[in-house]
């Protein structure tokens, strides 16, 4: 048997407790290994790699990972609670995009976490039925700041997307426009409601959700790199 043939079958041979290499072939390989120091060395090295691979130490992630996980779960809980007021997503592009969803970069996590804190505090205040004027105005200004940050980011993304939009597949473009219009309409409606009753915290929360939804849509599309 030639070295080349033996080398080619060595992994199968090493894994042969699973019956990959049997009978005559196995004997031939063993005969060759007994007489060829090079192949025997190789066999031993591959064996060591295989053995060491099963004994690799576990690695420990940074402590902050747990905090990040908890934050995201909290965001989801709030989002799920708010979903009651949102019409179901049409299938197609949207469901595909949402399947792309759960990859956040660090700045995004920071943003989402900040939003979560605000939303959680809204929920808490709502729950307590605390209608103190001071709380409202503090919260309102926090929300305005948050809204402005989000708007700036959205505008930036939108400008970049507009440039590329012309080259998109028409069906995709139509789908994107439809999604965007749906969010825009909801934002308009929400703004009207807010004008009528500026202290309606549910509307404020909905507004933030809509901005986040829009930001997410743009970001998903951005990620497509078309």
């Amino acid at each position, binding site marked *: 048997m030639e070295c080349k043939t033996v080398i080619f079958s060595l992994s199968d041979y090493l894994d042969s407790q699973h019956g990959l290499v049997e009978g005559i072939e196995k004997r031939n390989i063993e005969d060759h290994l007994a007489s060829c120091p090079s192949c025997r*060395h190789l066999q031993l*090295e591959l064996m060591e790699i295989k053995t060491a*691979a099963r004994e690799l130490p576990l*690695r420990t*992630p940074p402590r902050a990972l747990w905090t990040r996980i908890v934050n995201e779960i909290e965001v989801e809980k709030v989002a799920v609670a708010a979903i009651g007021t949102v019409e179901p997503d049409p299938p197609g592009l949207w469901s595909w995009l949402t399947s792309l969803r759960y*990859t956040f970069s*660090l700045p995004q996590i920071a943003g989402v976490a900040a939003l979560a804190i605000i939303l959680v505090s809204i929920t808490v205040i709502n729950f307590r039925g605390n209608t103190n004027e001071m709380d409202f105005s503090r919260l309102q200004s926090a929300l305005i700041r948050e809204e402005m940050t989000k708007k700036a980011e959205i505008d930036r993304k939108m400008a970049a997307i507009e440039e590329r939009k012309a080259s998109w597949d028409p069906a995709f473009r139509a789908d994107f426009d439809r999604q965007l219009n749906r969010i825009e309409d909801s934002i308009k409606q929400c703004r009207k409601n807010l004008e009528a009753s500026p202290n309606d915290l549910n509307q404020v929360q909905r507004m933030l959700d809509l901005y986040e939804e829009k930001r997410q849509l743009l970001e998903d599309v951005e990620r497509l790199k078309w």
Partner: protein
Amino acid sequence: MTVKEINNAKSDYDLTQASANGDMTAFELLYERHHRRVYSLCLRMVANATEAEDLSQEVFVQLFRKVGSFRGESAFTTWLHRLTVNHVLMHFRKKRVKLENTTEEGEIGEMQDIIQAVTDRPRFIDRIALDKAIADLPPGYRTVFVLHDVEGFEHEEVAALLGVSVGTSKSQLHKARLRLRDLINKGKPQRGS
């Protein structure tokens, strides 16, 4: 019994049920028990700490969502393991990482190198060196090696997970091991220098 002992006495299954009911303490305990395995698996598959952290985070968030569907038929570790592998592979698909890495590199040239390199074999493969070498593998080789040799999947499972043939899985593994051996030997200090 201390709190810790009570916690340790709870099975993974108990903890999954409690987590499914929104008990974050139970979920944290599950995290404590399993996060190093999840992270290590992600880290070895993607060879990038930041990405591995992001993926581990996603796996645990997904776990929280799905934990109620764990019925306890298999070990929780096996279940979580699969969830993690699938998540990382999904991540590869999104990033369009080419997993089937049946490369064009000349088999013969490789053989010559192999035969020449076997002289004067170092006795011991240091695990840190192996870990580092795994990170340096091309993604296709790395995935098959991590799944089969590190995580203990059978070729049939690896093939099914990656959507390749068993033969491809085997040949990728063999090439991965040969490449690792090269990388480890190259990483060793040269004699006489």
